[in-house]
């Protein structure tokens, strides 16, 4: 399952809900969701606490649009929109945590 998160963890609980209830798989952070992947953020702690259960991806263009592309935490793989499409194709199902 590909889990797609599009809101900042400071704004919504969608990342928490996903981390608590989703089976292992991949998480793709897009839109304001990319704030979770910044070094020193509350999101970083949560993603690290998930302890490798999920492979974490973040959408590069959305990081750049927010000026935080140089502050991405370790262990996050950056993808562009083409990579987003590939992730959807690679996983049988996707869930947008809205």
């Amino acid at each position, binding site marked *: 399952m590909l889990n797609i998160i*599009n809101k900042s963890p400071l704004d919504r609980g969608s990342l928490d809900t996903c981390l608590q209830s989703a089976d292992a798989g991949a998480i793709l952070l897009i839109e304001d969701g990319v704030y979770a992947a910044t070094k020193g953020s509350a999101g970083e702690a949560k993603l690290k606490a998930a302890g490798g259960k999920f492979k974490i991806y973040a959408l590069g263009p959305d990081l750049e649009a927010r000026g935080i592309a140089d502050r991405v935490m370790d262990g996050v793989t950056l993808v*562009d*929109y083409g990579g*987003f499409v590939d992730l959807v194709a690679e996983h049988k199902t996707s869930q*947008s945590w809205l």
Partner: protein
Amino acid sequence: MKFSILINEGPYTHQASDSAYQFAKSVLAKGHEIFRIFFYHDGVNNATRLTTPPQDDRNIVNRWSKLAEEHKLDMVVCVAAAQRRGIVDEGEAKRNGKDATNLAPGFRISGLGQLIEAGIQADRMVTFGD
């Protein structure tokens, strides 16, 4: 691979409509097929041709229409969501006694069955929303 896309958020709200558009373009660029794009809830506001953004801003509605024309996409607007928000084609105008229509080119108004079918027929369904 066949993709379907569900859009639940209006244009110029947060980013869902823009993300969905960039995603759709990349799906096509990678040689995949888009079975259908379904606009639901506030997403139906992507389909009004009366939108007039500033000239130096992207025109989200026209952008969808152009993409649909170039790639023969099936873009479906939920009828019940459209009625609530004043998105009207000729058939709906006649049926509901409205004096105008505003459905943009490339869109068609239909029912939720089209969303279900999109989920069944496509290999992948991706949701964009608020």
